[in-house]
């Protein structure tokens, strides 16, 4: 058990800012912080569960047949997450729309299965997937938070900017997602450089 397995996904190999994986949900659902949080948690659940299962059965899986098998396992957890959201958080599920079922094709998940869980022991795979999930969730909350503050003047639905603030509608539109993500990746790299030097 290594703590590095957990922290890898948080910063050094952050799925959004460093690996730049899973861009479809990252850009599409982050119009509000709460959507980023929900999408992040759903993805974390799927990546953790599928990594654990794949790590358990890794020695029984014939090498040539592994990709379809991983996909079936991932799709099962995604369907479970989708039904759970629809049953218990109907409004959020409606707002996220087709992006919950689309977690199946999120490269972060198949990437962890291929690169890590199919080769490493269960506990290490669990920590790795958890780190990646938390890193992904944090990135989506930051992105959704910035877009919500500038685009609607609120954060998690609470008004924090003064009344009469003109909402930057572009921030809620797709263009705002690209602009914010680009700037965030830039800021991330600057901080990373500084940390490496010191």
């Amino acid at each position, binding site marked *: 058990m290594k703590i590095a397995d957990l922290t890898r996904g948080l910063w050094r190999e952050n799925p959004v800012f460093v690996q730049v994986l899973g861009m479809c949900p990252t850009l599409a659902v982050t119009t509000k912080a709460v959507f980023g949080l929900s999408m992040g948690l759903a993805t974390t659940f799927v990546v953790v569960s599928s990594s654990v299962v794949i790590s358990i059965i890794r020695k029984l899986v*014939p090498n040539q047949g592994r990709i379809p*098998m991983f996909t079936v396992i991932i799709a099962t957890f995604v*369907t479970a997450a989708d039904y759970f959201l*629809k*049953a218990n958080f*109907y409004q959020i599920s*409606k707002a996220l729309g087709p992006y919950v079922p689309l977690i199946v094709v999120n490269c972060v998940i198949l990437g962890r299965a291929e690169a890590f869980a199919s080769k490493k022991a269960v506990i290490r795979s669990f920590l790795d997937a958890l780190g990646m999930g938390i890193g992904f969730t944090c990135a989506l909350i930051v992105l959704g938070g910035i877009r919500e503050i500038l685009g609607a003047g609120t954060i998690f639905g609470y008004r924090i900017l003064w009344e009469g603030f003109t909402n930057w*509608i572009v921030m809620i*539109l797709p263009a705002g997602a690209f602009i914010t993500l680009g700037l965030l990746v830039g800021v991330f790299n600057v901080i990373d450089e500084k940390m490496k030097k010191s």
Partner: protein
Amino acid sequence: MVGRIIKAVINNTVIRMLTALSIVGAVAGASLVFVYNYATPKIEVNVEGGTEKAIKTIFPDVGKIKQTGEKDVYKIENSQGEIEGYAFLAEGNGYQGTIKLIIGVDPKIDKMMGMEVLESQETPGLGAEISSAHFRDQFIDLPVTKKIEYVKNQKLEKDNQIEAITGATISSKAVVRIINNRIEELRQQGLGS
């Protein structure tokens, strides 16, 4: 000889792959049955609850919501048992995807009692404003003996007009069109006469 054949079959990659994939598929399918059984009743409640909530917003003094012969058309009675009007589902294309509305009218279908958005995929911040109170309130007590019209960035001149949302004319137009079409359709079926 037989032993060797069995061994060859077990070691055959294709057969191993198919077996493993079948097992994984069967286990996955079986576990999803449990998830489905757990979630489906709850999801149905959520969907129906949305319609009921919308009707209660349009008709605050609702006593009974009665099904009519027509699907998704409800007769609304107030707490004294008098007919308040009708509520019905209407849907059509918006700017992105389908818009689903609940529309309330008075018993003679002379004017609207209100409108609620059940489902829409309109642009957040622009088209999604069709769900805002500012836009919806325009439909309360709006006469519908003539077709509803919309105006852009100018004063309302006739009483059957509403003001389109700035920057979301297509969504506003879609709502007006969906309401007009549905009311027309129900009138032809003899509702309210």
